[in-house]
């Protein structure tokens, strides 16, 4: 592990105050010895930088998918006191409410094995890639509804059912959304992109439940061995990117106005209760809601395709759960035995609330919140459940994915899109994408092994394994 970092547990490491000047609290991250081999000094520097921000509580945290980002590291979690803490777009990222959802189906592996026509049809109907536009004509009024009530708007507009909302974090929308704080430019970008997947690491996958670790939780969540599921990974598209760009600019001035010293310009921030902080939070919530509406619309298209191709009922494809992994939330947490309102930033980290939380659907309350961790293309994804230990240690947070270990430049040098596709096909995985580059960028080799990442959070106990799903078909941007 890196110099200056102390081991404090089997998979737990501390970055002491003083690692960078001005740290208010220590940094803490969860990582196995073997995953530590690919840890970049830049990521730890960023973890330490976050610890310098005003009002930070307990620790600047990072999950085992930690890697070098901008502002916060990817995998970073930090909670700030609502009274004297800050809010920063650098702790959320450009893709506000990038997240994952998992749909169940009544189908089994034998029904979909080798069905290239299914993957082709999904690739044809779900808009993907750079420059893609949605099939739905969104009026400015509809866009406002998407930003105010997110997935609820989508369900009311006919893109799903009421039960879906119970299975979304925040029930599909953040009530703090303020559409006045969203610029005309952001709105302009949002109009043509409703129901589009995007590019980069976003995907839609047909997966099979291959392993059950916790039968009672799996049953309650709605998962059974051999079952076909569909995983959707995307975010708030150009609208969210523009909200981040616009508010970074505003918050950069605010950082100076409120005399906040920051070690990295991408950590521009403002007090949570300042007009600038409130405005960013309202705009971020509106973008988050757009993302929930977006995932709901893509779910609808997917259900229609599956329903038509396999003669199954729309209602027989329930949503297991939907999580946000790039977001800031106002939450109540217990600090030194007292309830306290805090602003939790999760940048490439997933909420993992434990059993008994009022924010979990009643039928899942005794198990903890479902946590969905996507694997990289061709590797397993996992469903876990949140734990009390996460509430105690990480403000109810866990990892969000596999975490990159190879740069795109290296991937282009070492790998070929055709070979990757051929290798995946040998394993029974069909891939569709607009370009070979998109496949090389997201090859299984460029990510940490997803099972190693989830094993760390499972062993630490900040979430626990429920099921493993393996892909048989992927569509990418």
């Amino acid at each position, binding site marked *: 592990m890196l110099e200056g970092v102390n081991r404090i547990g089997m998979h737990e490491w501390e970055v002491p105050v003083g690692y960078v000047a001005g740290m208010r609290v220590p940094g803490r991250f969860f990582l196995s010895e073997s995953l530590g081999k690919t840890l970049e000094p830049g990521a730890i520097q960023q973890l330490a930088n976050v610890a310098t921000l005003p009002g930070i509580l307990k620790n600047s945290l990072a999950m085992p998918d930690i890697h*070098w980002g901008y502002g916060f590291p990817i995998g970073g979690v930090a909670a700030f006191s609502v009274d004297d803490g800050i809010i920063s777009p650098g702790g959320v990222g450009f893709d506000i409410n990038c997240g994952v959802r998992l749909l169940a189906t009544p189908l089994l592996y034998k029904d979909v094995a080798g069905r290239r026509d299914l993957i082709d049809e999904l690739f044809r109907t779900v808009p993907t890639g750079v420059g893609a536009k949605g099939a739905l004509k969104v009026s400015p009024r509809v866009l406002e509804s998407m930003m105010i009530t997110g997935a609820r708007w989508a369900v009311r507009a006919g893109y799903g059912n009421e039960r879906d909302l119970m299975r979304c974090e925040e029930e599909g929308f953040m009530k703090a959304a303020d559409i006045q704080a969203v610029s005309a430019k952001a709105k302009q970008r949002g109009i043509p992109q409703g129901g589009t997947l995007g590019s980069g690491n976003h995907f839609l996958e047909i997966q099979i439940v291959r392993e059950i670790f916790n039968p009672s939780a799996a049953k309650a969540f709605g998962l059974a061995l051999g079952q076909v599921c569909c995983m959707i990974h995307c975010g708030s598209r150009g609208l969210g*990117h523009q909200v981040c760009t616009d508010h*970074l600019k505003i918050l950069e001035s605010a950082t100076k106005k409120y005399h906040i010293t920051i070690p990295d310009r991408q950590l521009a921030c403002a007090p949570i209760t300042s007009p600038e902080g409130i405005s960013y939070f309202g705009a971020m919530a509106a973008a988050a809601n757009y993302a929930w509406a977006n995932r709901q619309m893509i779910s609808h298209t997917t259900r229609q395709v599956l329903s038509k191709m396999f003669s199954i009922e729309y209602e027989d494809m329930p949503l297991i759960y939907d999580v946000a992994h790039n977001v800031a939330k106002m939450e109540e947490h217990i600090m030194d035995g007292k309830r306290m309102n805090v602003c939790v930033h999760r940048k490439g980290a997933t909420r993992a609330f434990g059993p008994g939380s009022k924010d979990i659907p009643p039928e899942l309350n005794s198990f903890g919140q479902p946590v969905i961790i996507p694997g990289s293309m061709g590797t397993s994804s996992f469903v876990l459940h949140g734990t009390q230990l996460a509430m105690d240690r990480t403000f109810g947070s866990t990892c969000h994915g596999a975490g990159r270990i*190879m*740069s795109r*430049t290296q991937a282009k040098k070492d790998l070929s899109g055709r070979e990757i596709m051929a290798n995946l096909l040998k394993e029974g995985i069909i891939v569709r994408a607009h370009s070979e*580059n998109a496949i090389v960028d997201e090859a299984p080799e460029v990510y940490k092994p997803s099972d190693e990442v989830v094993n760390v959070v499972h062993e630490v106990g900040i979430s626990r394994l429920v099921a493993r799903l393996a892909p048989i078909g992927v569509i990418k941007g």
Partner: protein
Amino acid sequence: MRMSFEEISHTADVKIRVRAPTLEALFSETLKALMQVMYGPNLNGDSLRKIQIESDDYEALLADFLSEVLFISEVESLVFSEASVRIDGYSLNAELTGEPFSLIRHSGGTEVKGISYSGLAIKCEAKGYMLDIIFDV
């Protein structure tokens, strides 16, 4: 010094190193890098688009310029190949040339979500200017 840009290793995002003899050339070369990352190498065309930006310093001027190009490129479905840039203080005027987005010719890249300030510093060297910039993808 010749104008050039190269992608340098960055795990999560795209990091570009740009060198140019003048500040103006540095900006236009960074724009080309951004377009290549997003749309691949097949860039040309003669559509004209003008941009005017004012900021507080050169780094912000560059980030704002590129963010504006991202916005225009997305909402107007335009792909730019060249920029003629004039900088006066912290004010920029640019004339961009490009062409409409084509699914066939421009699908070789990846979407850039934003221009990061992390580590962004424009350096004046003996023979010109250089910078490293991270595009969030």
